[in-house]
């Protein structure tokens, strides 16, 4: 097996007395979707923040394609190829859908230090942005203000912005939340095809999506990984059953 695209080693973060993540070591391999599941408050969002760099870890390391990025900030990790989508949309709500993907295109290509070039007259940028919108099926809504989008559309837009970055891997926090049955199926199908482009670390509550997509699953409970493996491994794990259902082993 080739070297993992992403790996964490002993990540830990505590807020006062509360330990949100504890000794988390996971990896993400080329071509796979690795889902992280766990009950509410298990530390999933904290883990994502640590991996993407918006939260500094108390201990542990994060490596992207073998390179230690622990000391880098969010934007440096994004430039190193980490494409992230947010659970609670972090979109520029006053801007249009198109402007949001355009921002991704700017970040991925020229950077923002061109002060006088018109961004909408740059075909490279606009094509790049439009492509991403088309792929998630939002092209028709490109003039809509983000604030006027449905929750599901915001999820799609989050994914589209991440696509513009052409990342080496995706880190997605609940991309199917709020999509409804129909939308959820479409998003699942889309992500299914995406894994060949770049592997996905997926945090998800929707178990149907997880079982449909995940090559491997890690279960996070009280900040610790209690099991990692294929769907069948996890189904068979007594620890997981105990943690989830409270059944004694």
């Amino acid at each position, binding site marked *: 097996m080739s070297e993992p695209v992403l790996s964490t080693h002993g990540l830990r973060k505590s807020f006062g007395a509360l330990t949100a993540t504890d000794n988390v070591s996971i990896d993400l391999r080329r071509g796979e979707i690795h889902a992280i599941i766990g009950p509410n408050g298990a530390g999933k969002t904290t883990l994502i923040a640590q991996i993407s760099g918006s939260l500094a870890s108390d201990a542990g390391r994060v490596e992207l394609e073998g390179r230690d990025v622990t000391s880098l900030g969010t934007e440096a990790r*994004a430039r190193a190829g980490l494409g992230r989508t947010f659970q609670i949309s972090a979109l520029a709500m006053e801007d249009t859908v198109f402007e*949001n993907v355009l921002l991704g295109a700017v970040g991925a290509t020229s950077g923002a230090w061109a002060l006088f070039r018109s*961004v909408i007259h740059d075909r490279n940028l606009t094509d790049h942005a439009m492509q991403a919108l088309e792929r998630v099926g939002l092209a028709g809504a490109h003039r809509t203000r983000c604030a006027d989008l449905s929750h599901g559309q915001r999820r799609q837009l989050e994914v589209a912005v991440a696509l513009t970055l052409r990342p080496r891997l995706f880190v997605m926090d609940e991309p199917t939340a709020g999509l409804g049955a129909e939308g959820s199926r479409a998003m699942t199908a889309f992500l299914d095809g995406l894994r060949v482009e770049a592997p996905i670390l997926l945090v998800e509550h929707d178990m149907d999506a997880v079982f449909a997509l995940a090559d491997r699953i890690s279960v996070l409970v009280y900040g610790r990984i209690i099991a990692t493996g294929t769907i069948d491994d996890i189904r068979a794990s007594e620890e997981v059953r105990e943690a989830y259902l409270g059944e004694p082993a």
Partner: protein
Amino acid sequence: MIGERYVNGAVLIGLIALPLWALSADEVFTITLTTRAAILALAAVGLNIALGIGGMVSFGHAVFFGLGGYAMGILAFHAQTFSPLDFGLFALPGTKSMPVIWLVATVVSAFAAWIIGLLSLRTAGVYFIMITLAFGQMFFYFAISWGAYGGEDGLSIYVRNSFVGLDTLMPIQFFGLCFALLCLALLLQWRLRRSPFGLALNAARQSTERVQSVGLNPRQLKLLAFVISGAITGVAGALFADLNRFVSPTMFSWQLSGELIILTIIGGVGRLMGPVIGAAIFITLEHWLGGLTDFWHVWLGTILLAIVLFWRGGVIGLLTGKEGPHV
């Protein structure tokens, strides 16, 4: 509702038509008032880049206004007293040339904005408001006690500085200069807003995480915006000093920082012409209400309160029926 483009055009036409009318009607003072409005508008265009696009509530923009003013005051003072400007190691002559003064004002205020921005952008929210206010107060008290250039008395420059080919003492010609610079700054803001930089800065105001997650550094974006903003306000300060032929520490006062914010809000924050409309209204109110009653501040306060509570988009928001960006 009216398209914003038409509102913008009407404002510019009005701004140039009023002094031309005044010239023909021999209402010289109206020209002076319009010039004052244009200069305040220029200062507020600077602020608007930081405040309206970048979301930085700077309560210390008077620093740059004052620095521009003192750049003019000090250079012209040395020119009018024929004394060199002594830097210890070397000395430079003063100057009465406006372009040189503007250049110095730009550089000095950009540099100050860089330092202040570097330190202040470590904080956010209320803390940012307060630390910029603190920098304003530092400069204010320094200027008051800096005896070499007049301290609280300020510096009087007896003759307005010169610009090649123009008689700047003619009010209409000086207005023309100020108007041209205002248009230049508006053009700059318009281009900036449409550039990749403007797009990213505008996004940084709304969501820091979003900008970071596409690999851009919001703090650096904001810092550059703050520097550009400070530089423009600095040039406005130099013009303001030239309009009055006088500089004093009141140019550094927190009330002035407040007024710049106020007129930006009145016009419409983040809108291209917001500062211009705001300045026009502010000057009109000051002049007209001030003439009606000694207690005009009560009415100014009431109007301001009404705008904040009921017309969040400012005048442009009211005219176009579209709410502007939130800061």
